[in-house]
């Protein structure tokens, strides 16, 4: 089911000035509920503009943004309610922490929304658990935590609103491999257990291949390609033309295919290539 949809969306910055720039050009794209969709594209491809449209931070110059089939800009005064339903985690969100304690920081949005203290407390601890923060940390100052923990606090501050759509711009940037895997795993689980739509923006092809169900590739303000992760990664030439890369393990698989060894399956993850090689050796796909 399509949860959030952009229909014929065009966006122009600085219209009718010498700095006029078209950031998005007739974009049509739908995001399905319950799935993790990856959004990739090199710097300047229009990703950030698109992301800011999803929860009404930017109003498109032309076209409509539909949430559950309803135009979010139908009543511009009620756009705030859309922001409760579509949560946006910006790049390096840990710089936005400000409150005295981790618990208060995570609960900020709920208190603003007018929830009673009991509900706030309960939801805060649930959100903290969602991103693997131990309850003991809730009474600490966010500024005493490590960078990776602060990132989790910031993400929990959005999860606490239980958004139906969760949009994250580079949630794992700057984290070590284990930290990346943990955060991305938590986000996937949030989507699965809440039936939420998760949209991930990332530069890491390895992460996209591993954690996304669908991938959207942007180029020069347009949707260059979109499909299941398998469809997108099966056309490596197209990805490279969009200024992207393919995961390292996939380069190895492609090289072997070129040398005449037939491999098939999910050649964009380590496990996929492992199983493909085992099958080619006649050892079966699983351990």
């Amino acid at each position, binding site marked *: 089911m399509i949860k959030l949809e952009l229909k014929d969306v065009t966006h122009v910055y600085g219209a009718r000035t010498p700095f006029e720039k078209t950031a998005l050009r007739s974009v049509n794209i739908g995001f399905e509920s319950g799935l993790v969709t990856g959004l990739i594209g*090199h*710097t*300047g491809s229009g990703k950030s503009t698109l992301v800011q449209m999803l929860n009404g931070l930017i109003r498109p110059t032309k076209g409509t943004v539909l949430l559950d089939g309803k135009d979010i800009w139908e009543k511009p005064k009620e756009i705030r309610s859309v922001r409760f339903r579509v949560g946006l985690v910006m790049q390096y969100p840990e710089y936005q922490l400000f409150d005295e304690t981790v618990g208060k920081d995570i609960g900020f949005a709920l208190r603003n929304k007018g929830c009673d203290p009991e509900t706030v407390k309960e939801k805060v601890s649930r959100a903290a658990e969602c991103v693997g923060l131990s309850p003991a940390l809730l009474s600490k100052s966010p500024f005493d935590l*490590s*960078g*990776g923990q602060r990132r989790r606090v910031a993400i929990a501050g959005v999860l606490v609103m239980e958004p139906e759509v969760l949009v994250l711009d*580079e949630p794992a*940037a*700057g*984290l*070590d*491999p*284990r*930290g*990346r895997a943990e955060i991305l795993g938590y986000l996937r689980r949030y989507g699965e257990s809440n039936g939420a739509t998760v949209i991930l923006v990332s*530069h890491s*092809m*390895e992460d996209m291949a591993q954690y996304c169900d669908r991938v959207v590739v942007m180029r020069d303000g347009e949707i260059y390609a979109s499909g299941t992760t398998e469809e997108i990664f099966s056309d490596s030439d197209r990805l490279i033309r969009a*200024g*992207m*890369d393919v*995961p*390292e*393990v996939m*380069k*190895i698989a492609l*090289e*072997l295919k070129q*040398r005449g*060894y037939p491999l098939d399956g999910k050649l964009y993850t*380590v*496990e996929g*290539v*492992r199983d493909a*090689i*085992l099958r*080619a*050796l006649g*050892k079966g796909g699983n*351990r």
Partner: protein
Amino acid sequence: MSSFIETRHLTLDYGGENGERPIRALSDVSLSIKEGEYIAILGHNGSGKSTLAKLLDLILFPTAGEIEIDGKVVTPEGLSDDEIFEIRRKIGMVFQNPDNQLVATVVEEDVAFGPENLGLPREEIRARIDAALDTVGMREYARHAPHKLSGGQKQRVAIAGVIAMMPKCIIFDESTAMLDPRGRREVTDTMEKLNRENGMTILHITHYMEEAARADRVIVISDGKILMDGAPREVFSRVEPLVACGLEAPQGTELLYELSLCGCSLPSGRITVSECADTLEELLSGKRG
């Protein structure tokens, strides 16, 4: 070749004021870095990588142990400010965020900032700017505004600003973390060029294993200590300890490791795409059992 940087039993504690217990960020680190080496430094978040970088650039001074840079032992008491600046000039640093390092509104003025502060003659400054921008391939952007450049271009301008100071060594502290794949390639290509063509010593702190695989030597830091130190081939062949300290091997190495767990007999220490493909071709064509 003698060492350019030598650290002996380097230890650094943070905090410890007001009777609090200090936090040990680095403990007993002894390292020797020769001029012209290309080294990658890996470690989990909070492992002490950046602390080490700051110690080498004299932004921090050790709690215990000593550092020798270019034959000079560094202690805060033993050196005048001028001497500290003299040493810092030998080691430049490029940081993570491309938006936090550029100070001017025109690319070439930004690159000029360092040399201008050295009080060099005008012609010398001009020559250094041009050479530095040429090296990083940004000469044609000399008169552009930095904020209109891509992340990779901004980082290359930041590198040019460091090169214009003519250091012997550059430390890159996760300088590729915020870039897209193209930007990362631009920056790592620049590092490699500086090392191979200009003989510059490069220390590259990164979370990307494929980037580390390009270096001549990889140092792994975990919980403030040196866990491994060797050629990429040696370090990455030890998949288990890497994973145990929150890191990973490059995907190709991991693939071979996974296959060997499934009973295929494969050598370790293969890193690059073509090496891994060659090894797997032997396996698939039946030359290996």
